[in-house]
């Protein structure tokens, strides 16, 4: 059982030995000669924030509670951003029009995770994925399950697996994971620029 962060009730990452180079600290001789070296001090610190998602993310999160994925359209080039931040990063103008997107999409990128870094990670190895929803210009992050890892490929069609309706909240965690759709792959070229 990995250790948990008591504040958030989430698991904490554990790094295998040797994954990153972490040599023992060395202590210069003049200090080591006169005293037991202090190699670290413990200074607990925590701060609490009442975070504001903002108007566009609020619209998005409220949509999720109704099992809707709401993107927002760029006022100039028409691209639909999801999740929305309220702004077109291309022209620096607010997005205004909301667009309801399908919970079907195409796999834009993936990687096979062999070390679970906490945050409710499924058993390893698993596939983390970027999914380009139909009609969207930006992709969303999630976990891809219900498929042998060696069969995962860019361009494959996927769909969201939601929590039970009774468990819906204003959270992106409403989508538990993504799974394959029985549809022909889209050409990878159509995903370029959207990863």
């Amino acid at each position, binding site marked *: 059982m990995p250790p948990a962060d008591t504040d958030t009730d989430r698991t904490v990452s554990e790094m295998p030995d040797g994954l990153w180079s972490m040599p023992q600290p060395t202590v210069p001789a003049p200090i080591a000669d006169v005293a037991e070296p202090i190699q670290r001090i413990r*200074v607990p*610190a925590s701060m609490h924030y009442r975070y*504001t998602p903002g108007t566009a*993310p609020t619209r998005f999160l409220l949509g999720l509670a109704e099992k809707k994925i709401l993107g927002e359209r760029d006022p100039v080039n028409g691209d639909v951003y999801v999740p929305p*931040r*309220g702004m*077109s990063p*291309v022209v620096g103008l*607010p997005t205004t029009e909301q667009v309801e997107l399908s919970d079907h999409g195409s796999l834009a990128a993936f990687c096979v995770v062999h070390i679970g870094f906490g945050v409710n990670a499924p058993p390893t190895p698993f596939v983390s994925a970027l999914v380009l929803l139909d009609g969207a210009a930006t992709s969303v992050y999630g976990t891809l399950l219900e498929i042998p890892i060696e069969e995962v490929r860019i361009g494959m069609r996927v769909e969201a697996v939601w929590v039970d309706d009774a468990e819906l909240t204003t959270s992106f965690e409403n989508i538990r994971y993504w799974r394959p759709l029985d549809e022909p792959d889209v050409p990878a070229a159509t995903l370029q620029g959207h990863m």
Partner: protein
Amino acid sequence: MAPTRDVAIVSFAQSDHRRAASDTNEVEMIQPVIHGALDKIGAKIADIGFTCSGSSDYLAGQAFSFVMTLDAVGAFPPIMESHVEMDGAWALYEAWLKIQAGHADTALVYGYSKASPGDLPRVLSRQLDPYYYGPLWPDSVALAGLQARAMLDAGLITEAEMAGIAHRSREAARGNPHAQIKGSAPIDQLLAEDYLSDPLRVHDVPPITDGGAAIVLAAGDRAREWVDRPAWIRGIDHRIDSHNLGARDLTAAPSAKLAGEKAGIGAGAVDVAELHAPFTHQEKILTTALGLGGSTVINPSGGPLAANPVMGAGLIRLGEVANRIMDGEANRGVAHATSGHLLQQNLVAVLEGDA
């Protein structure tokens, strides 16, 4: 540092400052301000050679928060851009250097924060060193109280003078449509209030503010193309006192004095000064260090006692002085910005209009 290129502030915009912008996120809050500064002179992001912002992840409560705020600029195709984890006044300094070095002729600078998500006095305590002061969590208001006490004991200020500064600032803010606190109770009524952190009363302390500001800089003829009367930056300098509060004479700001000298305040009369003194007693430290007095109008906008968006309040001082030069109300002004605890870091700029 004496400039080699003529660089001016040509546009300034700020938010309508509020205690909590709880309906918007940071990018939604600052976007109208950034575009307000650009629109005022009919500029597009394509006209800007360098963009620099000042903000803090500790205030935002999330990592790399400034990257998300860049969405408000419209940074595509990719722009030359930088960020400082300091007040926007230091972002302006970086942009000014960039223009002096000939790497750009124009710059967009902005600084902002939402202080409301966190507990600001505790968040600010994280500026202290991690070994000696940080673990004790002294909050920013308590530290300011130590400084005020030192000044009172040294006979450098009285509580009535402090109340007078609060009263004058907030009465002046009645004319500032962006101010958060406008108007003040009479001085005798202020002095009858209880202490917050003795010897500081509530009126001695700045409001907690969500907001920001944006400025456009331009060199030489480019500045003249955009506005009739650019606010030329004739001198700008910033200096730092010790981070160790116990090693400082808290009643003085030697770094502000030096920055003021290097910026060239003494070369002429000062019509107006906007001082980034979040606490009342700090205004006295700054007017002393910068040698301001007499006919100089101090903080006609109301200053940080009327609105204090952390990471923006220093940049606003530059903008408030620049506006008064651009509209012909003043010929020569001083803008000051501070960072760190108790006026530890100080930036001073001297702005002038064409004669």
